[in-house]
């Protein structure tokens, strides 16, 4: 049997009377690329923050890498990487300094930090940019850098919240190369996106509508189920029924 790294049962988050995430249940296997889809305001970020131990669930249960989201958040944090929807590396530090800082926080040795830095510089083609302030980099590079920092400590799972939002198609391809590479290293990838071509790259996807997970399957099965030619169509048929008008 496949090892389950994310097990989620009726996980719910309320903000006052508003239910942002409504009893979502699913499981993610080790090494899988799991696409977490949904329209704006569907509750993806809210769910992801709960899974990362950044936000306490209102009810339901979930374990990440075997650790409980209520009581073992710090153990979870040792085993995951997270790339938030909003760019959150230090813009007034250089690429090098950011890598060094987060490497240090995650407890990498100086030697490891040095190796990781060199690896990252050549892989992202950032060799000449290492001493530039992160704030001065173009968005695509920033996002690739964010990803690299999120997997710096070789976590079991990496959570990516719209990592390619606003990024050009070429850079998006490069980004997905990075994701595949991570998956090859048996890092589980949990990713949200609004691009349906990217949904096709995932092993399995779920689609959220108004805080609930409506469907969960492989892209091929979903297309079959909805008698659609593309994921676009599947998404459209589901998202059309959404009541939530966000952003």
């Amino acid at each position: 049997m496949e090892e389950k790294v994310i097990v989620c049962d009726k996980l719910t988050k309320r903000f006052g009377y508003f239910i942002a995430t409504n009893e979502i249940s699913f499981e993610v296997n080790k090494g899988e690329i799991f696409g977490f889809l949904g329209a704006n305001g569907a509750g993806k970020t809210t769910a992801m923050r709960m899974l990362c131990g950044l936000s306490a669930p209102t009810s339901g249960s979930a374990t990440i890498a075997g650790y409980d989201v209520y009581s073992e958040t710090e153990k979870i944090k040792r085993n995951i990487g997270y790339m938030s929807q909003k760019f959150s590396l230090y813009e007034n530090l250089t690429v090098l300094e950011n890598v060094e800082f987060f490497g240090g926080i995650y407890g990498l040795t100086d030697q490891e930090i040095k190796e990781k830095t060199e690896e990252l510089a050549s892989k992202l083609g950032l060799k000449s940019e290492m001493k530039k302030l992160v704030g001065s980099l173009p968005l695509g590079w920033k996002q690739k850098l964010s990803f690299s920092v999120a997997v710096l400590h070789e976590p079991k799972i990496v959570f990516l919240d719209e990592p390619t939002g606003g990024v050009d198609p070429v850079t998006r391809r490069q980004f997905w190369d990075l994701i595949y590479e991570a998956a090859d290293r048996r890092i589980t990838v949990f990713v949200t996106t609004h691009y349906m071509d990217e949904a096709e790259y995932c092993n399995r996807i779920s689609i959220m509508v108004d805080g609930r997970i409506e469907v969960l399957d492989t892209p091929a099965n979903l297309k079959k189920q909805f008698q659609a030619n593309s994921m676009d169509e599947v998404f459209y048929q589901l998202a059309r029924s959404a009541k939530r008008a966000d952003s």
Partner: protein
Amino acid sequence: MRTLRFLLRKEFRQIFRDKAILTLIFVMPVIQFIVMPLAADYEVRNVNLAVVDNDKSTYSQKLVSKVIASGYFKLQGYNSSFKEAFQLIESDKADLILEIPQGFERNLIREDKQKLFVAVNAINGTKANLGGAYLSSIIGNFNADIRMQLVQQPRFSQFPVIDVVASNWFNPALNYKVFIVPGILAILVTMIGGFLTALNIVKEKEVGTIEQINVTPIKKHIFILGKLIPFWILAMIVFTIGLILARVIYGIIPIGNLLVLYVFIAIYLLTVLGFGLLVSTFCDTQQQAMFIMFFFMMLFILLGGLFTSIDSMPYWAKLITRINPVRYMIEVMRMVILKGSGFQDVLPQMGVVSLMAVILNGWAILNYKKTN
């Protein structure tokens, strides 16, 4: 602790890259130090004086010229009757009336005793009262045997300056600065330390970088220490700059032991920074933090005993000052710098401030949530 080292390195890099903060740290103290003592100066010059000389003798004229020569007074009228002089007060042209009685010279010589009469315009109270004080000291100097009577009960006893100034009565102008400068340094260090700390963390929240920290297994107290230490060091530097400026600009050299001062400041800063940290844990935006810090800083400063002496505050305000760290800081600054107090003398203040430091920082750590 290895993690702490990385936090500190990052924090210092950011601070030294931020021109605004550097300016705040190094230029603000200099400017405040030069401007504030001038603005908060209680020195009174040009006290408008009306003289009623009923004696018109050599002695009385000598007295008047001596008063004028002191430089603190401007003669507004040399009147022949008290009524005339009083009109000057009523029209706000004079702050003080000095009345010299008839037979002043004669009685002075014969009886070795004479009474003078000084009337104070209580509308511009500070000026007139201080003028009255100057006048009495000048007259006292003129002839130790001349007794003077003030019409209005002077409020000298309530003046915060009295115990310091008394020893140097003839140079009050200098003494006000000596008195005010240590207090201003106290406030400066408090403001810089408190604001920088509060705004720094809230900025990380606003920009979103704190999310990237919160998702790491970093320990809360390590993170808080990583914020506390850099600003503690900066505030210590500002304090040192302040001490040097006080010496260079105002010639103020602490009479007491510098070590006492630094030990106290070290603890006091933990209190102030702890307060800043606590505020930051309650706020999501820099604007909120700014307002809250301003609110408390105003209270702390107004109730700190710098501008208004604590003795003259109403009872309820006195009670509040007991939980005001700034009050203790100003007290200790004055005690050590002006009076030369030692460790034993400032022990009570040190105790209170230490307790506050523990409470505020403990509260800040508890209230800082990596998961919300």
